[in-house]
């Protein structure tokens, strides 16, 4: 099972995402933003970081990279895509996920161990969890406040597109405590928290994040 991890200029958590893929039992394939083709991978992770320094808007410039055209095309055809933090911002900027991520309500970068509730355990990236499961993974961002027009938020909630929600406090002022959302077909998922930082006892607050990476392995097998 080959899972691509895209490196944009300024990507930071690409090494972590690749490690998480390996620990889950997959093969991590390094992809470069300036290439055109996805090297035949079975799924793609857009990692965290500060692509292009997060200048202009977080994720805005990376969303226009050559490789993103392939990601968008293949995602429409069902390729599983996970965007973590900056990757989530890129997916929103690229139009694959609804809404936008803006400056945190308290205006600070905030890094802490965050409790989340899994609301959708049937996406390509969350099938290892159970609905309502509580997990703890790190969150760290300065522009992680999820926003959309109220009607759009109603629609997303109505369609069950919220994948994970912040529990025990909202770290950035996101609308309705939304931490992550999915595409209508459940194949594309974006979230601000960092499951790839919760995959080893030695370095993480838990190993709760591993499920994202094991989920996709089984979803690709069954797809």
């Amino acid at each position, binding site marked *: 099972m080959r899972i691509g991890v895209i490196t944009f200029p300024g990507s930071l958590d690409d090494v972590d995402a690749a490690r998480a893929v390996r620990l889950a039992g997959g093969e991590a394939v390094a992809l470069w933003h300036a290439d055109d083709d996805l090297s035949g991978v079975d799924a793609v992770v857009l990692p965290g970081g500060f692509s292009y320094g997060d200048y*202009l*808007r977080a994720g*805005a410039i990376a969303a*226009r990279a050559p490789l993103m055209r392939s990601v968008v095309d293949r995602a429409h055809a069902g390729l599983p895509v996970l965007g973590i933090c900056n990757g989530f911002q890129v997916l*929103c*900027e690229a139009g694959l996920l*609804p*809404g*936008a991520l*803006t*400056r*945190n*309500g*308290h*205006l600070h970068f905030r890094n802490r161990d965050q409790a989340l509730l899994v609301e959708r355990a049937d996406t390509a990236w969350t099938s290892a969890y159970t609905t309502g499961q509580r997990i703890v993974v790190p969150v760290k961002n300065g522009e992680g*406040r999820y*926003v*959309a*027009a*109220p009607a759009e938020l109603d629609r997303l909630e109505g369609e069950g597109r919220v994948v994970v929600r912040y529990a025990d406090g909202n770290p950035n*002022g996101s609308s309705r405590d939304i931490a992550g959302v999915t595409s209508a077909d459940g194949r594309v998922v974006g979230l601000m928290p960092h499951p790839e930082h919760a995959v080893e006892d030695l370095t993480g607050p838990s190993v709760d994040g591993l499920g994202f990476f094991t989920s996709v392995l089984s979803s690709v097998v069954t797809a």
Partner: protein
Amino acid sequence: MPRVVVDVVLKPEISDPQGQAVLGALGRLGHPGVTSVRQGKHFVLEVEGTPDAAELRQIAETLLANPVIEDVELHLPSD
């Protein structure tokens, strides 16, 4: 060289914590007359030759601003 100015502002329904923080500071510093502050971005572009209004509008609306949350004001040199 022609200069084009693009102002990007948050849509009114999107909350603006930066503007709120400035407003709070103004109150504390004794400027109660200011009743609202919104913070946006201000771009100054220099363009070679005659600016192409359609191209600049596209740049402003698709790259400089995120239409999901932001509005754009374009000021061409002739404005």
